[in-house]
């Protein structure tokens, strides 16, 4: 069999770039009972990275929760969660936020990573902090970036309600990531509203042909940018 006939051959193509993680690592912080705790870590980048990550309540990261996600509360009549963690960033720091609604201190163990947005073109020499350098190997199926961009929504004195459609035309529902950015801080968009009454300001959805960004910004909301990344991967 020649290489040309071998279905297992690998093609290295630059048609679809891979995500480049420009900052990342692990961190932990303890939040006293019934407190919202905020911690920061300098990212050393000349732009605001788009952060993602996860967290655990044990140092071995055995049970891993997505950011803004948590197990159902032990007091469900009072709240949905007993604790939850978020990861944002501004121009200087990665910002960790832990919400603890229990009576006792809780330690959050966070794994975080951030990427450069489509609007930035800063100099960064390599992935900062403790993440592993990329080894492009045929053992892995890497997420392949298909389309990245952003939409700006200026500050307005009146209520802004609109939907922007970004065509991807893949013919199937792809993986999508999105972030909001306002007042100098970027935050992952993890929770979205739909149905007859949208209460959160930004909702991102996707079907087999398009990405939809629906905003419901109250009068006086700051100028808001929505970053999106559409992947070739389903």
């Amino acid at each position, binding site marked *: 069999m020649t290489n040309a006939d071998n279905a297992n051959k690998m093609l290295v193509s630059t048609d679809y770039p891979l995500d480049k993680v420009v900052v990342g690592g692990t961190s932990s912080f303890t939040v006293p009972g019934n407190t919202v705790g905020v911690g920061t870590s300098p990212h050393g980048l000349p732009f605001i990275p788009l952060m993602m990550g996860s967290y655990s309540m044990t140092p071995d*990261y055995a049970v891993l929760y*997505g950011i803004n996600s948590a197990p159902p509360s032990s007091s*469900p009549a009072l709240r949905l969660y007993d604790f939850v963690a978020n990861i944002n960033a501004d121009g200087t720091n990665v910002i960790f936020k832990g919400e603890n609604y229990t009576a006792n201190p809780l330690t959050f163990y966070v794994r*975080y990573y951030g990427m450069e947005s489509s609007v930035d073109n800063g100099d960064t020499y390599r992935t900062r902090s403790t993440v592993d350098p990329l080894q492009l190997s045929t053992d892995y199926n*890497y997420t392949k970036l298909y389309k990245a961009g952003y939409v700006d929504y200026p500050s307005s004195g009146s209520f802004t309600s609109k939907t922007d459609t970004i065509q991807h035309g893949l013919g199937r529902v792809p993986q999508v990531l*999105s972030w909001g950015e306002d007042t100098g801080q970027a935050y992952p968009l993890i929770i979205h509203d739909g149905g007859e*009454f949208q209460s959160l300001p930004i909702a991102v959805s*996707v079907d087999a042909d398009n990405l939809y960004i629906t905003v419901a910004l109250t009068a006086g909301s700051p100028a808001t940018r929505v970053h999106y990344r559409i992947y070739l991967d389903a």
Partner: protein
Amino acid sequence: MPKAESFILTTDFATLKNDNTKSIDVVVPASVVIAPGTLYNVSSDLVIGVTGAEQRIKVKSSRIGAKYFAGMFNVTWEGTTPFGPAIYTAYARAVRVSPTVVRCIVTIPNPYPDPLTTGISETFTFIVNTFLSPAG
């Protein structure tokens, strides 16, 4: 001499690697009656991902159509109490309950002092992607 079959490229930047993808439905039946001040929960479990895998979810509602919302999902509809129409919110979430089990949950709180009856049946379809984290 390098072996041809162990071809590897390296760069200075980490990236994300896919692990697995699965889908599951969670159904809220029509006209569920929820007692005052309580939650209605319905869930399905997915066995997915290696230990420590990151997850992304997308969720769609049968009452909305083909759009998958790019993360956890809240949807608000009109139900009824004995005293008339009342809105309620269904919260669609996915959370790990063990290293390799993701529980897809729909929660509907009744914030009213009276029984709440939900609207028509609604099927929430969750797509869960797991991938290998570049961090840690």
